[in-house]
């Protein structure tokens, strides 16, 4: 069981810098829990408070958001075979989930809660730093994309107003 979790964490892009921190990874594998979800089940609900990150072992999930008219649309599809994970923001702060996640097939996850992740980081500061850095890199990428989106929206808005002047 633990060996399998260990193998999974090794494959997850978030922990790819921890190759030299075997002891830390073993400890993390012990801190995780396994969770299953049947096809069609809601793993995470948009707007609810989250406190755990999910690494997909097997199966496929769909990340879903809602429009202003409350119509659901698919943001992306994540699969276990591609080292998919989601909910990593919950490891950093206590906030509402920004999207829903629905299992597209029967799924298996390894779940790390914020509390345990932080305790693990205290025990293995070097590994904790590397992992947090990885998450920060992820966030930086998203922030840049969000900035680009804001500029796109902003210029569309200005263009729209220009036509009405």
């Amino acid at each position, binding site marked *: 069981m633990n060996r399998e979790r260990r193998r999974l964490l090794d494959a997850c892009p978030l922990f790819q810098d921890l190759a030299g921190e075997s002891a830390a990874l073993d400890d993390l594998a012990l801190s995780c829990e396994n969770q299953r979800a049947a096809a069609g089940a809601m793993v995470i609900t948009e707007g609810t408070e989250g406190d755990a990150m999910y690494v997909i072992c097997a199966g496929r999930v769909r990340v879903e958001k809602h*429009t202003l*008219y409350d*119509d659901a*649309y698919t943001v992306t599809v994540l699969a276990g075979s591609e080292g998919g994970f989601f909910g990593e923001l919950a490891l950093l702060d206590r906030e509402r989930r920004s999207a829903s996640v629905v299992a597209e097939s029967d799924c298996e996850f390894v779940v790390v809660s914020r509390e345990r992740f932080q305790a693990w980081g205290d025990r293995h500061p070097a590994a904790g730093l590397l992992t947090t850095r990885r998450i920060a890199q992820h966030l930086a990428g998203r922030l840049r994309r969000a900035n680009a989106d804001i500029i796109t929206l902003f210029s*569309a808005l200005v263009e729209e107003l220009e036509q009405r002047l």
Partner: protein
Amino acid sequence: MPRPARRPPSSFSERLHHVWHALQTEHVPAMVLYFLVTLVVSGGLVYYIERSRNEGFRSLEDGFWWALVTLTTIGYGDRYPITTTGRLVAGVVVLFGMGMVGVATAKIASILVERRIKEGRGLSETHDLTGHFVIMGWKPDMHLLVKEVLAAHPGLNAEHLVLINSAGEEANDGLRGQFEGLRYLHGELTDPLVLQRANIARAAKVFVLADATGGRSDQEIDARTVMALMNIENLAPGVYTYAEVLDRQYVDYLRLAHCDEIILSREYGRFMLVSASASAGISQALLELMDISDGGGLTGEAIPAEFAGRTFGELAARVKAESGRLLIGLLENTGQPLTIKRKALREAQKTANVGVLVENLRRVKELVANRPVLNPGDEYVIGTHARALVLPRGTPATSEAKR
């Protein structure tokens, strides 16, 4: 997020309320109440007086029955009072009954006559209509226009046609005689009150004609059409509007007033003249294309749902194979423009990519309802709300070349 206000349906209870209101202004409920009170009091009184001496009044029911027969001046005579007191009461009841019947008859007559006069003068209201077709303005050949509008809309009958114009009682009486049930409202095109009387918020279509009565200049006529369209847009934003304009300059103003279809009738006429001079016979061909009587001419029809997303070529082949008709083009985004745009807006939001979102929203903004696409090529992909422009196969009767 502003949500569109939904139009309430014209419910049964609402119509009942209208009838009740009309009756109340004529004091009908009060009169019915007086009648019932008189009936109960006099019937009871006569029964009480007569019951011991008269075989005819055995129960209270006999008393009420006698009062009803007497008050309505029917007077069967199956039972009658025989005591002096009873006869005195009966005398009062008879007099009362005569008065009451007279008043009721007069009231009913006056309500009927008044409605007649109002209809004739175009002062009635059409609160009961929904999904109706309103034609605003007057034309010298109005009877032909009405006839052809009815012919072009199978399922539309004259009762669902409302004319708004200021041509007067005589002109409209002629039309109303010709088309049973046709409604006419007297009023200026620019008057919002007459639009309300026509229940415009629940109409399906409104056609605003270039009304040349009163010796107005072309500019004045078109300006009034624009004003009418603005009023309609204000009172009934969801209604599909057509407007006839004389001067091309006013097309932009009509677009600002959200007119759905603009007909440059004079330009069509000129175009016919010019094309006739340029190549002999083409005006005949165009006329046949436009003439939709007898199942001929160009028509728009629904496309089977499975063809949405497939190509024009596939649909053309299917139409040809099935009925030998010719698919010459498509009308994209057909239907109520507001509904179409709302639907498109909903769909446009379903993306996580902001670049795509902005592009989608821009496309919604530029979406033109009922846009014709003529002979777009076989690889053109058919949209979800498209209709087919189909030319029927010429029959031996209409194609003389075969003879």
